[in-house]
Every structure is written in structure tokens, then in C-alpha cells.
């Protein structure tokens, strides 16, 4: 297990000004990592919440600092916003007596496929996977840059396992569309896993409405009970809907792995370097 009592970890999330669900998994993972003692300090920072990327370094006592973006893919935020706001000059930044180590985003982790399979199995216990269509839902516009690419990569990996009857990428805003799920799936059971970092508006509200399992009630996201009513029987199928993959507690391990990966890739990274 990673043991870095002399180092600090900053987990960077997007956050939201309209609901608390966006940052919740990032805070949860941070609390879990702090409890297990892998790092001497663990902090969160957000683009749209506090502490902000401009504030968080003031919160850090230690001089050796790992920064892991809790993002589903590389893209605008991981390549432009986070480095700019933290004033990073590359993977390694020496500043004010500190060594800032910018790690790869969690979504890049090779175990993502394993987590998606775990979540799919948990949401549909006892359902034979060979009789199951598995849908991995992404956003599907250029809004999230490479998230569609990342989702496709994971679907290819899942397909290669041969575990599920069929596996599809599906998107909110481009084909194959979520709301047409019954037109391209053929199995009697359908498992849907949102490829998002948090249960924000998309996974609580937008996707359930598109799937047809929920009316747009206008209720606040946190007040809805979408994930506890499985399975749903509609359009002649049995549908199981999972919460966003980023809420999976094992995500914390992936965050730590990204820090460990940084060490392997930058073995000479020291404060005196």
C-alpha cells in the first residue's frame, strides 16, 4: 500500500454551483484515503466549488505534493484549466520550496474496465451476463473533450472479455442515443452504467428521463431515488440502472495508483532535483 506520510495529496474535481452531488465522490474518496493513512495530508480542490484551485495550495503544509485530477478523461480541464490555475509548468513543478507532481486523471487508469464490470454486476445481481446488454453512457459532445474516446476504449475492453451478451457505448447527445436503447439492444436484460465522475444532473435526472424510467419531476437531484428501484420493466425488457462509475469506492484506489504511477514514471523527482 502507498505510504507517504511526508507527502500531501490534492484531488481535483469539477464541482458545481447548482448541486452538491458533483463534488461528493471527490470528498468521499479523500476522506477514505486520509483514513487509511496513505498520505500525510489529503485535500480536495474544485473548479466550481471551494476550496478553489487558487486557494488549495495554501492549505498544504507539506512540500511534496501529488495532484490527481478526479476526471473521467484527459481534456480541456486536465490539460488547460488545472495546470493554468495551479500554475503548473509540466508534470513536475518546483515552486516556493515545493515539488508539485501532476498525475494522470483517474479515468485513464487501466482498471477502469474492472470497475465498470464490478458496478454492472452489482446492479444486476444474479442476472446471467450472457443474456445482458451492457450500456456505458457518456456525454457525447465535445463538451467533455475526450470523454467519448475514453468511454469507447472501455467498451472495447469490456467487449474483449466476452462476458456480456453485447456491449454498447451510448450518448446523451449523439448516436447511438440513450433514449433509443431498445432499438439497438437485443438481450432481455439491459444494464446501464453512466461513465461519469459523479451523480450530478446527468445521471440522476437526464439519463433516467431519456431511458424512460423516470418522469422529469423537477425534484432536486439528491432527493430522487433512481438507483433503489431496480429493476425497471419497460419496452419489453428488464432494465437495471447504476449510479455513476465515479461513486465506486474503489475509485480511491485508482487515485492512489495514479500517484504511484507518477513515482514510477518520474523516479528522480525530488525537492533537490
Amino acid at each position, binding site marked *: 500500500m502507498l505510504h507517504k506520510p*511526508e507527502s500531501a495529496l490534492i484531488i481535483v474535481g469539477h464541482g*458545481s*454551483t*447548482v*448541486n*452538491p452531488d458533483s463534488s461528493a465522490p471527490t*470528498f468521499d474518496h479523500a*476522506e477514505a484515503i486520509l483514513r487509511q493513512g496513505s498520505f*500525510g495530508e489529503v*485535500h480536495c480542490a474544485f*473548479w*466550481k*466549488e*471551494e*476550496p*478553489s484551485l*487558487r*486557494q*488549495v495550495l*495554501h*492549505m*498544504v*503544509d*507539506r*512540500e511534496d505534493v501529488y495532484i490527481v485530477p478526479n476526471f473521467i478523461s484527459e481534456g*480541456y480541464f486536465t490539460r*488547460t*484549466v488545472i495546470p*493554468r490555475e495551479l500554475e503548473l509548468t509540466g508534470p513536475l513543478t518546483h515552486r*516556493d*520550496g515545493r515539488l508539485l507532481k501532476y498525475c494522470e486523471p483517474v479515468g485513464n487508469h487501466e482498471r477502469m474496465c474492472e470497475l465498470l464490470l464490478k458496478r454492472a454486476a452489482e446492479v444486476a445481481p444474479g442476472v446471467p451476463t450472457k443474456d445482458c446488454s451492457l450500456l456505458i453512457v457518456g456525454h457525447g*459532445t*465535445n*463538451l467533455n*473533450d475526450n470523454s467519448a474516446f475514453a468511454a469507447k476504449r472501455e467498451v472495447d475492453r469490456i467487449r474483449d472479455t466476452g462476458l456480456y451478451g453485447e456491449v454498447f457505448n451510448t450518448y446523451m447527445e449523439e448516436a447511438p442515443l440513450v433514449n433509443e436503447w431498445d432499438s439497438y439492444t437485443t438481450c432481455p436484460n439491459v444494464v446501464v452504467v453512466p461513465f461519469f465522475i459523479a451523480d450530478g444532473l446527468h445521471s440522476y435526472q437526464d439519463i433516467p428521463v431519456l431511458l424512460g424510467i423516470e418522469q422529469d419531476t423537477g425534484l*432536486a437531484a439528491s432527493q430522487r431515488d433512481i438507483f433503489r428501484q431496480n429493476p425497471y420493466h419497460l419496452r419489453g425488457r428488464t432494465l437495471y440502472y447504476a449510479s455513476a462509475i465515479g461513486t465506486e469506492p474503489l475509485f480511491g484506489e485508482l487515485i492512489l495508483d495514479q500517484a504511484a504511477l507518477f513515482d514510477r514514471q518520474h523516479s528522480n523527482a525530488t525537492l533537490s532535483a
Partner: protein
Amino acid sequence: MKRNLTQALESWIAAGFRSIGQITITPQSNGGYELRHAEDLGREDLHLHTSADDARGLSFFDDANVYRPLKTAPTLRHGWRLLAGTAGELRAALDHFYPSMTALWLSYLEGKLPPVPLRETLGRQTGMYAATKRLLDDEGQELVGKACAASACTKRMLWPFSENQPLTQLPAEDLSCEPRVMADGSHQIPLLCHEACNILVAACREVVKKRERAQSPQPSAASPASH
């Protein structure tokens, strides 16, 4: 580890600091600390919390259960008290209630909190917030006067509008770093803002977009999709 915010926090409490924002901090005989809403002093019916992690949930919603994206808004919920067993737990709880605020105060005391002019913050924005570079001085000052007023945010604004232009629409007490002396003689840790937050940057964008929509009857080109 040269910096130690936990020790600094202990020293401030020992020196008579007893509040931050809307929270009163009361040292306990066992070495711990009790936190509660300053307006709940004397109440006996408060819900007791004993984990610093509980501060996250308490900080996220106001009395009407409305989400609080800005933790320094003067809308901290009432009805709770939280016991922090150690200074480390106190620090963790305050990091939820007022994220980074004790750290920024320490940085200020160490002379390591240079304010960033609003124009500089807006000037580095990209994607959908690049539009904020077109903010006019007058509309920007007026916006700051409303969005950063004590009725909306209890931080003290350390940053000027630009290198040559101070903030003109906020009262002097909202721009001061001095700790407030409370009625009982104790001191309050000030909430400092050394750089405009994303909420203000987003509001600047709205002001620019609204003006440009009003000025141009033609549908404007779609903004870049990045947010």
C-alpha cells in the same frame, strides 16, 4: 514540513480568537473545541455532531435546505453543534465550513498572499469564460458591489479591480484584513479573498453576455463548448 497550520490555529485560539465567519469556537476543558453558529449561543436543543467530517453536510445546505455553493455566504445553517477533539479535527471541520480560510489567514500573516487584480483573473480565462475579458469597468465595479457585498459573501476583498483601479462599490470594512474585535473582546479570524472566485467570474460572463445580446439583435455565435 515547515508550515503547520494546525499549530497556527492552536496559537490563534490561545491568543483569544474565538470565531470565524458565523461560527463561534469554544475551547473545552478536555482540550477539544466546540463549534456552533454564533446565533445559537445559549441554545440547549442543538443537534450534536462529533465527527469533523459531519461539517461537510452541515456546510452544504442552509436552513431551508438550499445548496450553498459559496461557503462564505452569510447563510450558515443553525441548529447544530460540533465537538472537535483535537486541533487537527478543528482544522478539518473549519476546512469544510470555510474552505481554505484559516490557511489564507496564515498565508496573509506570513506575507504570502499577494492579491490578484480582477482584470488579471479574467485575463487568463479561456473557453466560455474568455468572454469576461470584455467586461467594462463600470459594469464590473457595479457587479462586484452587489456580488461581493457582505449580504452575499462575508469575505474581505483584498484584490483591486485592476492594477490601477481599486474596488469602488464596496465599503471599507469589506476591504480590510484586520481581525474584527467582538463584543466580548474576543477576536474573529477574518475570511480573506485574495482573488475573485469562479462564481464571480461566471457572473462577469453573464453581465457581458447580457449586454452583448441587448446590443446585437442578431443571434450571437455559439460560445466555445468548454466550461
